[in-house]
Protein backbone atom coordinates (compact mmCIF):
# COMPACT_ATOMS: atom_id res chain seq x y z
CA UNK A 1 0.00 0.00 0.00
CA UNK A 2 2.69 2.45 0.97
CA UNK A 3 4.99 1.80 -1.99
CA UNK A 4 1.99 2.16 -4.28
CA UNK A 5 1.19 5.55 -2.84
CA UNK A 6 4.79 6.64 -3.16
CA UNK A 7 4.89 5.48 -6.73
CA UNK A 8 1.68 7.29 -7.39
CA UNK A 9 2.92 10.48 -5.77
CA UNK A 10 6.10 10.26 -7.83
CA UNK A 11 4.13 9.70 -11.00
CA UNK A 12 1.80 12.58 -10.21
CA UNK A 13 4.74 14.86 -9.54
CA UNK A 14 6.31 13.85 -12.83
CA UNK A 15 3.06 14.48 -14.64
CA UNK A 16 2.65 17.92 -13.13
CA UNK A 17 6.24 18.75 -13.97
CA UNK A 18 6.06 17.45 -17.52
CA UNK A 19 2.70 19.16 -18.05
CA UNK A 20 4.27 22.53 -17.47
CA UNK A 21 7.25 21.81 -19.71
CA UNK A 22 6.11 19.60 -22.57
CA UNK A 23 2.76 21.08 -23.54
CA UNK A 24 4.33 23.91 -25.53
CA UNK A 25 5.14 22.12 -28.83
CA UNK A 26 1.52 21.12 -29.43
CA UNK A 27 0.02 24.46 -28.46
CA UNK A 28 -1.20 25.06 -31.99
CA UNK A 29 -2.97 21.75 -32.31
CA UNK A 30 -6.72 22.06 -32.97
CA UNK A 31 -8.90 20.90 -30.04
CA UNK A 32 -10.58 18.07 -31.92
CA UNK A 33 -7.23 16.87 -33.28
CA UNK A 34 -5.87 16.92 -29.74
CA UNK A 35 -8.71 14.83 -28.32
CA UNK A 36 -8.53 12.41 -31.24
CA UNK A 37 -4.80 11.96 -30.74
CA UNK A 38 -5.07 11.38 -26.98
CA UNK A 39 -7.98 9.01 -27.40
CA UNK A 40 -6.31 6.93 -30.13
CA UNK A 41 -3.07 6.88 -28.16
CA UNK A 42 -4.78 5.68 -24.97
CA UNK A 43 -6.92 3.03 -26.66
CA UNK A 44 -3.94 1.67 -28.60
CA UNK A 45 -1.88 1.50 -25.42
CA UNK A 46 -4.62 -0.40 -23.59
CA UNK A 47 -5.20 -2.83 -26.44
CA UNK A 48 -1.48 -3.50 -26.82
CA UNK A 49 -0.84 -4.14 -23.14
CA UNK A 50 -2.08 -7.33 -21.52
CA UNK A 51 -1.06 -6.08 -18.07
CA UNK A 52 -3.35 -3.09 -18.37
CA UNK A 53 -6.25 -5.26 -19.49
CA UNK A 54 -5.59 -7.47 -16.50
CA UNK A 55 -5.89 -4.46 -14.21
CA UNK A 56 -2.23 -3.69 -13.40
CA UNK A 57 -2.71 -0.57 -11.33
CA UNK A 58 0.79 0.87 -11.63
CA UNK A 59 0.75 0.62 -15.41
CA UNK A 60 -2.71 2.12 -15.73
CA UNK A 61 -1.79 5.01 -13.45
CA UNK A 62 1.32 5.57 -15.49
CA UNK A 63 -0.77 5.71 -18.66
CA UNK A 64 -3.26 8.17 -17.19
CA UNK A 65 -0.52 10.37 -15.78
CA UNK A 66 1.61 10.48 -18.90
CA UNK A 67 -1.01 10.57 -21.66
CA UNK A 68 -4.11 12.19 -20.22
CA UNK A 69 -3.37 14.42 -17.24
CA UNK A 70 -1.08 16.85 -19.12
CA UNK A 71 -4.13 17.83 -21.17
CA UNK A 72 -6.59 18.20 -18.32
CA UNK A 73 -7.24 21.48 -16.52
CA UNK A 74 -7.91 20.00 -13.09
CA UNK A 75 -8.12 23.37 -11.40
CA UNK A 76 -10.86 24.59 -13.71
CA UNK A 77 -12.80 21.38 -13.18
CA UNK A 78 -12.52 21.70 -9.42
CA UNK A 79 -13.37 25.39 -9.48
CA UNK A 80 -16.55 24.75 -11.43
CA UNK A 81 -17.61 21.83 -9.27
CA UNK A 82 -17.10 23.96 -6.14
CA UNK A 83 -19.12 26.81 -7.69
CA UNK A 84 -19.62 29.83 -5.45
CA UNK A 85 -17.65 28.23 -2.63
CA UNK A 86 -14.41 28.40 -4.62
CA UNK A 87 -13.78 32.05 -3.87
CA UNK A 88 -14.28 31.59 -0.13
CA UNK A 89 -11.54 28.94 -0.04
CA UNK A 90 -7.94 29.88 0.74
CA UNK A 91 -5.31 29.28 -1.96
CA UNK A 92 -3.99 26.27 -0.01
CA UNK A 93 -7.48 24.84 0.25
CA UNK A 94 -8.02 25.38 -3.46
CA UNK A 95 -4.79 23.60 -4.21
CA UNK A 96 -5.53 20.67 -1.90
CA UNK A 97 -9.07 20.33 -3.19
CA UNK A 98 -7.84 20.29 -6.79
CA UNK A 99 -5.25 17.67 -5.94
CA UNK A 100 -7.73 15.34 -4.22
CA UNK A 101 -10.39 15.77 -6.89
CA UNK A 102 -7.85 15.08 -9.62
CA UNK A 103 -6.71 11.93 -7.84
CA UNK A 104 -10.30 10.70 -7.58
CA UNK A 105 -10.83 11.33 -11.29
CA UNK A 106 -7.63 9.46 -12.11
CA UNK A 107 -8.79 6.42 -10.13
CA UNK A 108 -12.19 6.52 -11.79
CA UNK A 109 -10.70 6.89 -15.21
CA UNK A 110 -8.26 4.08 -14.54
CA UNK A 111 -11.19 1.82 -13.65
CA UNK A 112 -12.90 2.70 -16.92
CA UNK A 113 -9.73 2.10 -18.95
CA UNK A 114 -9.35 -1.48 -17.77
CA UNK A 115 -12.77 -2.29 -19.25
CA UNK A 116 -11.80 -1.26 -22.81
CA UNK A 117 -12.09 -4.21 -25.17
CA UNK A 118 -13.35 -3.98 -28.74
CA UNK A 119 -14.68 -0.45 -28.62
CA UNK A 120 -14.08 2.03 -31.39
CA UNK A 121 -14.40 5.80 -31.08
CA UNK A 122 -16.14 7.86 -33.71
CA UNK A 123 -15.76 11.65 -33.76
CA UNK A 124 -18.50 13.96 -34.91
CA UNK A 125 -17.91 17.12 -36.93
CA UNK A 126 -16.85 20.18 -34.89
CA UNK A 127 -19.15 23.15 -34.71
CA UNK A 128 -16.87 26.01 -33.86
CA UNK A 129 -14.93 28.74 -35.54
CA UNK A 130 -11.12 28.99 -35.31
CA UNK A 131 -11.40 32.07 -33.10
CA UNK A 132 -13.29 30.22 -30.34
CA UNK A 133 -11.46 29.68 -27.07
CA UNK A 134 -14.03 27.34 -25.58
CA UNK A 135 -15.29 24.39 -27.61
CA UNK A 136 -17.05 21.07 -27.35
CA UNK A 137 -15.61 18.01 -29.07
CA UNK A 138 -18.20 15.31 -29.56
CA UNK A 139 -17.62 11.61 -30.01
CA UNK A 140 -19.28 8.31 -29.42
CA UNK A 141 -17.90 4.98 -28.35
CA UNK A 142 -19.31 2.14 -30.38
CA UNK A 143 -19.65 -0.95 -28.23
CA UNK A 144 -20.26 -4.50 -29.36
CA UNK A 145 -23.59 -4.65 -27.55
CA UNK A 146 -26.16 -1.94 -26.90
CA UNK A 147 -26.37 1.62 -28.10
CA UNK A 148 -23.26 3.79 -28.57
CA UNK A 149 -21.97 5.69 -25.54
CA UNK A 150 -21.87 9.47 -25.89
CA UNK A 151 -18.48 10.87 -24.93
CA UNK A 152 -18.10 14.63 -25.29
CA UNK A 153 -15.35 16.93 -24.08
CA UNK A 154 -15.26 20.62 -23.23
CA UNK A 155 -11.95 22.34 -23.85
CA UNK A 156 -10.73 25.83 -23.29
CA UNK A 157 -7.68 27.51 -24.76
CA UNK A 158 -5.08 28.89 -22.39
CA UNK A 159 -1.39 29.78 -22.45
CA UNK A 160 -0.43 26.13 -22.78
CA UNK A 161 -2.83 25.31 -25.59
CA UNK A 162 -6.11 23.47 -25.33
CA UNK A 163 -7.04 21.66 -22.17
CA UNK A 164 -10.00 19.48 -21.29
CA UNK A 165 -12.06 20.76 -18.38
CA UNK A 166 -15.21 18.66 -18.54
CA UNK A 167 -16.34 15.31 -19.90
CA UNK A 168 -19.83 14.22 -20.84
CA UNK A 169 -20.61 10.54 -20.47
CA UNK A 170 -24.02 9.26 -21.60
CA UNK A 171 -25.43 12.78 -21.63
CA UNK A 172 -24.24 13.85 -18.17
CA UNK A 173 -21.42 16.34 -17.60
CA UNK A 174 -18.99 15.14 -14.97
CA UNK A 175 -18.44 18.50 -13.27
CA UNK A 176 -22.14 19.19 -12.98
CA UNK A 177 -22.73 15.73 -11.56
CA UNK A 178 -20.29 16.51 -8.74
CA UNK A 179 -21.66 20.00 -8.10
CA UNK A 180 -24.46 18.97 -5.70
CA UNK A 181 -22.20 16.82 -3.56
CA UNK A 182 -19.50 19.48 -3.40
CA UNK A 183 -22.08 22.08 -2.50
CA UNK A 184 -23.79 20.09 0.24
CA UNK A 185 -20.53 18.83 1.73
CA UNK A 186 -19.01 22.32 1.86
CA UNK A 187 -22.22 23.78 3.32
CA UNK A 188 -22.18 21.15 6.06
CA UNK A 189 -18.50 20.68 6.88
CA UNK A 190 -16.66 23.43 5.06
CA UNK A 191 -14.00 23.17 2.37
CA UNK A 192 -11.77 21.16 4.71
CA UNK A 193 -14.61 18.70 5.24
CA UNK A 194 -14.85 18.10 1.50
CA UNK A 195 -11.07 17.74 1.17
CA UNK A 196 -11.11 15.19 3.98
CA UNK A 197 -13.96 13.26 2.39
CA UNK A 198 -12.20 13.14 -0.99
CA UNK A 199 -8.92 12.08 0.66
CA UNK A 200 -10.70 9.26 2.51
CA UNK A 201 -12.27 7.98 -0.68
CA UNK A 202 -8.93 8.14 -2.48
CA UNK A 203 -7.17 6.20 0.28
CA UNK A 204 -9.95 3.62 0.09
CA UNK A 205 -9.60 3.31 -3.68
CA UNK A 206 -5.79 3.10 -3.45
CA UNK A 207 -5.99 0.07 -1.18
CA UNK A 208 -8.59 -1.68 -3.29
CA UNK A 209 -7.63 -3.71 -6.36
CA UNK A 210 -8.93 -2.42 -9.66
CA UNK A 211 -12.08 -4.10 -10.84
CA UNK A 212 -11.18 -7.49 -12.24
CA UNK A 213 -11.69 -7.55 -15.99
CA UNK A 214 -14.78 -9.36 -17.19
CA UNK A 215 -14.17 -12.76 -18.74
Amino acid at each position, binding site marked *: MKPVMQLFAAAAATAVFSASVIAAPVANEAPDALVKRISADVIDSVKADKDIQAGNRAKIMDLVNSKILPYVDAQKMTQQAAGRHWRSATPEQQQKLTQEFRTLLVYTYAGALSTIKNETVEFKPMRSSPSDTDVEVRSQVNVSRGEPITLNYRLSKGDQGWKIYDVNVLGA*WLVQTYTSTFNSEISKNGVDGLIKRLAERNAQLASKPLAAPAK
Partner: protein
Amino acid sequence: MKHTVTLSRLRACAAAAAVLALSGCATTGNQQDPLEGYNRAVFSFNDAVDRTVLKPTATAYKNVVPGFAQTGVNNFFGNLSDAWSSINNFLQGKVEDGGTDFGRFALNSTFGIFGLLDIASEAGMPKHNEDFGQTLGKWGVPSGPFLMLPLLGPSTVRDTAALPADFAGDIWKYKDPTHVRNIGAGVRIIDKRATLLDASNLLEEAALDRYEFLRDGYLQRRQSQVYDGDVPRQANDDAGADAAGDANSQVVPQPVSVEKK
Protein backbone atom coordinates in the same frame (compact mmCIF):
# COMPACT_ATOMS: atom_id res chain seq x y z
CA MET B 1 -64.34 19.34 24.42
CA LYS B 2 -60.81 18.91 25.57
CA HIS B 3 -60.85 15.52 24.04
CA THR B 4 -61.63 16.83 20.55
CA VAL B 5 -58.91 19.45 20.77
CA THR B 6 -56.36 16.77 21.55
CA LEU B 7 -57.64 14.69 18.69
CA SER B 8 -57.44 17.46 16.15
CA ARG B 9 -53.99 18.33 17.43
CA LEU B 10 -53.00 14.75 17.01
CA ARG B 11 -54.33 14.78 13.51
CA ALA B 12 -52.42 17.93 12.70
CA CYS B 13 -49.29 16.35 14.13
CA ALA B 14 -49.84 13.20 12.12
CA ALA B 15 -50.34 15.22 8.96
CA ALA B 16 -47.21 17.24 9.66
CA ALA B 17 -45.28 14.05 10.33
CA ALA B 18 -46.49 12.58 7.06
CA VAL B 19 -45.44 15.67 5.17
CA LEU B 20 -42.07 15.59 6.90
CA ALA B 21 -41.60 11.94 6.10
CA LEU B 22 -42.43 12.61 2.49
CA SER B 23 -40.28 15.66 2.07
CA GLY B 24 -37.56 14.40 4.36
CA CYS B 25 -35.03 16.71 5.87
CA ALA B 26 -34.11 18.38 2.61
CA THR B 27 -31.17 20.28 4.03
CA THR B 28 -29.36 20.66 0.73
CA GLY B 29 -32.54 21.96 -0.88
CA ASN B 30 -31.97 20.84 -4.44
CA GLN B 31 -34.71 22.52 -6.43
CA GLN B 32 -35.32 19.51 -8.60
CA ASP B 33 -35.55 17.14 -5.66
CA PRO B 34 -38.12 18.34 -3.12
CA LEU B 35 -38.87 14.71 -2.20
CA GLU B 36 -35.27 13.90 -1.33
CA GLY B 37 -36.10 12.22 1.98
CA TYR B 38 -38.56 9.82 0.40
CA ASN B 39 -36.33 9.27 -2.62
CA ARG B 40 -33.33 8.40 -0.47
CA ALA B 41 -35.39 5.84 1.46
CA VAL B 42 -36.49 4.18 -1.79
CA PHE B 43 -32.90 4.32 -3.04
CA SER B 44 -31.71 2.40 0.03
CA PHE B 45 -34.40 -0.20 -0.56
CA ASN B 46 -33.53 -0.57 -4.25
CA ASP B 47 -29.87 -0.77 -3.36
CA ALA B 48 -30.49 -3.57 -0.86
CA VAL B 49 -32.47 -5.55 -3.45
CA ASP B 50 -29.74 -4.98 -6.00
CA ARG B 51 -26.91 -6.03 -3.72
CA THR B 52 -28.61 -9.19 -2.46
CA VAL B 53 -30.43 -10.43 -5.55
CA LEU B 54 -30.07 -8.58 -8.82
CA LYS B 55 -26.36 -7.83 -9.03
CA PRO B 56 -25.17 -11.35 -8.04
CA THR B 57 -27.60 -12.89 -10.54
CA ALA B 58 -26.53 -10.54 -13.31
CA THR B 59 -22.84 -11.15 -12.56
CA ALA B 60 -23.38 -14.92 -12.76
CA TYR B 61 -25.34 -14.48 -15.99
CA LYS B 62 -22.54 -12.43 -17.51
CA ASN B 63 -19.85 -14.91 -16.51
CA VAL B 64 -21.67 -18.15 -17.30
CA VAL B 65 -23.97 -17.59 -20.28
CA PRO B 66 -22.06 -17.70 -23.62
CA GLY B 67 -21.52 -14.31 -25.23
CA PHE B 68 -23.56 -15.08 -28.35
CA ALA B 69 -26.57 -16.05 -26.21
CA GLN B 70 -26.35 -12.79 -24.25
CA THR B 71 -26.16 -10.86 -27.49
CA GLY B 72 -29.20 -12.76 -28.76
CA VAL B 73 -31.24 -11.98 -25.65
CA ASN B 74 -30.21 -8.34 -25.82
CA ASN B 75 -31.07 -8.10 -29.51
CA PHE B 76 -34.40 -9.87 -29.05
CA PHE B 77 -35.75 -7.44 -26.46
CA GLY B 78 -34.03 -4.51 -28.13
CA ASN B 79 -35.92 -5.38 -31.29
CA LEU B 80 -39.27 -5.32 -29.47
CA SER B 81 -38.48 -1.88 -28.10
CA ASP B 82 -37.62 -0.60 -31.59
CA ALA B 83 -41.31 -0.82 -32.51
CA TRP B 84 -42.36 1.46 -29.64
CA SER B 85 -39.36 3.68 -30.27
CA SER B 86 -40.51 4.07 -33.87
CA ILE B 87 -43.97 5.21 -32.78
CA ASN B 88 -42.45 7.73 -30.36
CA ASN B 89 -40.20 9.10 -33.07
CA PHE B 90 -43.26 9.68 -35.26
CA LEU B 91 -45.06 11.32 -32.31
CA GLN B 92 -42.10 13.67 -31.94
CA GLY B 93 -42.24 14.53 -35.63
CA LYS B 94 -38.96 12.77 -36.38
CA VAL B 95 -40.19 10.99 -39.47
CA GLU B 96 -36.81 9.82 -40.68
CA ASP B 97 -35.79 8.27 -37.34
CA GLY B 98 -39.25 6.75 -36.98
CA GLY B 99 -38.91 5.20 -40.42
CA THR B 100 -35.47 3.83 -39.59
CA ASP B 101 -36.69 2.27 -36.35
CA PHE B 102 -39.67 0.72 -38.09
CA GLY B 103 -37.34 -0.59 -40.79
CA ARG B 104 -35.08 -2.04 -38.09
CA PHE B 105 -38.03 -3.79 -36.49
CA ALA B 106 -39.25 -5.19 -39.81
CA LEU B 107 -35.80 -6.32 -40.97
CA ASN B 108 -34.64 -7.81 -37.67
CA SER B 109 -37.97 -9.54 -36.96
CA THR B 110 -37.84 -11.38 -40.29
CA PHE B 111 -34.31 -11.81 -41.62
CA GLY B 112 -32.88 -11.37 -38.13
CA ILE B 113 -34.84 -14.42 -36.91
CA PHE B 114 -37.36 -12.82 -34.51
CA GLY B 115 -34.85 -10.15 -33.61
CA LEU B 116 -32.10 -12.48 -32.33
CA LEU B 117 -29.71 -10.97 -34.86
CA ASP B 118 -29.33 -7.23 -35.22
CA ILE B 119 -28.63 -7.17 -38.94
CA ALA B 120 -30.13 -3.69 -39.28
CA SER B 121 -27.28 -2.13 -37.27
CA GLU B 122 -24.78 -3.83 -39.52
CA ALA B 123 -26.71 -2.50 -42.50
CA GLY B 124 -26.14 1.01 -41.17
CA MET B 125 -29.54 1.64 -39.58
CA PRO B 126 -28.77 3.17 -36.18
CA LYS B 127 -30.93 2.37 -33.16
CA HIS B 128 -32.80 5.20 -31.42
CA ASN B 129 -34.09 4.60 -27.95
CA GLU B 130 -37.18 6.76 -27.61
CA ASP B 131 -39.86 6.38 -24.96
CA PHE B 132 -43.03 8.26 -24.13
CA GLY B 133 -41.33 10.35 -21.42
CA GLN B 134 -39.01 11.76 -24.07
CA THR B 135 -41.98 12.38 -26.34
CA LEU B 136 -43.71 14.37 -23.58
CA GLY B 137 -40.47 16.28 -23.03
CA LYS B 138 -40.24 17.07 -26.71
CA TRP B 139 -43.82 18.34 -26.57
CA GLY B 140 -42.71 20.78 -23.88
CA VAL B 141 -43.85 19.00 -20.71
CA PRO B 142 -41.33 19.88 -17.97
CA SER B 143 -39.71 16.95 -16.19
CA GLY B 144 -41.01 17.96 -12.74
CA PRO B 145 -39.32 16.80 -9.54
CA PHE B 146 -36.97 13.85 -9.42
CA LEU B 147 -38.62 10.63 -8.29
CA MET B 148 -36.96 7.39 -7.18
CA LEU B 149 -39.32 4.54 -7.98
CA PRO B 150 -39.29 1.27 -6.03
CA LEU B 151 -37.47 -1.38 -8.11
CA LEU B 152 -37.72 0.71 -11.30
CA GLY B 153 -35.07 3.21 -10.20
CA PRO B 154 -34.54 6.87 -11.03
CA SER B 155 -37.33 8.77 -12.76
CA THR B 156 -39.15 12.10 -12.76
CA VAL B 157 -42.81 12.96 -12.32
CA ARG B 158 -43.17 13.35 -16.08
CA ASP B 159 -41.42 10.08 -16.89
CA THR B 160 -43.47 8.26 -14.26
CA ALA B 161 -46.68 9.61 -15.79
CA ALA B 162 -45.45 8.31 -19.14
CA LEU B 163 -44.81 4.80 -17.80
CA PRO B 164 -48.32 3.36 -18.39
CA ALA B 165 -47.98 4.28 -22.07
CA ASP B 166 -44.51 2.71 -22.21
CA PHE B 167 -45.83 -0.46 -20.58
CA ALA B 168 -48.74 -0.58 -23.02
CA GLY B 169 -46.34 -0.06 -25.93
CA ASP B 170 -44.18 -2.98 -24.86
CA ILE B 171 -44.97 -5.88 -27.19
CA TRP B 172 -43.72 -8.51 -24.72
CA LYS B 173 -46.56 -7.54 -22.40
CA TYR B 174 -48.99 -9.27 -24.78
CA LYS B 175 -47.02 -12.53 -24.96
CA ASP B 176 -48.99 -15.66 -24.05
CA PRO B 177 -48.88 -17.91 -22.08
CA THR B 178 -48.24 -16.06 -18.84
CA HIS B 179 -45.37 -18.20 -17.56
CA VAL B 180 -43.37 -17.63 -20.76
CA ARG B 181 -44.06 -13.93 -20.44
CA ASN B 182 -42.88 -13.87 -16.82
CA ILE B 183 -39.71 -15.86 -17.48
CA GLY B 184 -38.96 -13.58 -20.42
CA ALA B 185 -39.49 -10.50 -18.30
CA GLY B 186 -37.09 -11.90 -15.69
CA VAL B 187 -34.39 -12.71 -18.25
CA ARG B 188 -34.82 -9.24 -19.73
CA ILE B 189 -34.20 -7.56 -16.37
CA ILE B 190 -31.13 -9.69 -15.62
CA ASP B 191 -29.72 -9.02 -19.08
CA LYS B 192 -30.32 -5.30 -18.66
CA ARG B 193 -28.56 -5.32 -15.29
CA ALA B 194 -25.66 -7.32 -16.76
CA THR B 195 -25.04 -4.64 -19.39
CA LEU B 196 -24.87 -2.05 -16.60
CA LEU B 197 -22.34 -3.91 -14.41
CA ASP B 198 -19.29 -1.95 -15.52
CA ALA B 199 -21.12 1.35 -15.23
CA SER B 200 -22.44 0.62 -11.75
CA ASN B 201 -18.99 -0.45 -10.52
CA LEU B 202 -17.66 2.82 -11.83
CA LEU B 203 -20.43 4.73 -10.08
CA GLU B 204 -19.45 3.20 -6.76
CA GLU B 205 -15.88 4.37 -7.17
CA ALA B 206 -16.55 7.82 -8.57
CA ALA B 207 -19.39 9.00 -6.36
CA LEU B 208 -18.94 10.53 -2.92
CA ASP B 209 -22.70 10.32 -2.49
CA ARG B 210 -24.11 7.69 -4.83
CA TYR B 211 -27.66 8.98 -4.53
CA GLU B 212 -26.75 12.52 -5.55
CA PHE B 213 -24.43 11.30 -8.28
CA LEU B 214 -27.10 9.03 -9.73
CA ARG B 215 -29.79 11.71 -9.47
CA ASP B 216 -27.80 14.48 -11.11
CA GLY B 217 -26.41 12.16 -13.75
CA TYR B 218 -29.88 10.80 -14.51
CA LEU B 219 -31.53 14.23 -14.79
CA GLN B 220 -28.87 15.42 -17.20
CA ARG B 221 -29.03 12.24 -19.23
CA ARG B 222 -32.80 12.40 -19.61
CA GLN B 223 -32.61 16.00 -20.72
CA SER B 224 -29.92 15.07 -23.19
CA GLN B 225 -32.17 12.30 -24.53
CA VAL B 226 -35.09 14.69 -24.95
CA TYR B 227 -32.85 16.98 -26.99
CA ASP B 228 -31.25 14.00 -28.75
CA GLY B 229 -27.84 14.97 -27.47
CA ASP B 230 -28.05 18.63 -28.51
CA VAL B 231 -28.89 20.28 -25.21
CA PRO B 232 -28.68 24.09 -25.38
CA ARG B 233 -25.93 25.05 -22.96
CA GLN B 234 -28.14 27.17 -20.73
CA ALA B 235 -30.83 24.50 -20.49
CA ASN B 236 -28.22 21.94 -19.54
CA ASP B 237 -26.81 24.13 -16.81
CA ASP B 238 -30.27 24.49 -15.31
CA ALA B 239 -30.74 20.75 -14.98
CA GLY B 240 -29.92 19.21 -11.63
CA ALA B 241 -27.48 21.86 -10.55
CA ASP B 242 -28.57 24.38 -8.00
CA ALA B 243 -25.11 25.56 -7.14
CA ALA B 244 -23.45 25.68 -10.53
CA GLY B 245 -24.18 29.40 -10.32
CA ASP B 246 -21.35 31.77 -10.92
CA ALA B 247 -18.85 29.12 -11.93
CA ASN B 248 -20.82 28.41 -15.06
CA SER B 249 -21.41 32.03 -15.89
CA GLN B 250 -17.68 32.40 -16.45
CA VAL B 251 -17.96 30.06 -19.37
CA VAL B 252 -18.49 31.77 -22.67
CA PRO B 253 -21.77 30.44 -24.06
CA GLN B 254 -21.51 29.01 -27.51
CA PRO B 255 -24.09 28.78 -30.25
CA VAL B 256 -24.17 25.00 -30.20
CA SER B 257 -27.34 24.87 -32.22
CA VAL B 258 -25.75 26.61 -35.19
CA GLU B 259 -24.45 24.13 -37.70
CA LYS B 260 -21.29 25.27 -39.43
CA LYS B 261 -20.37 23.56 -42.63
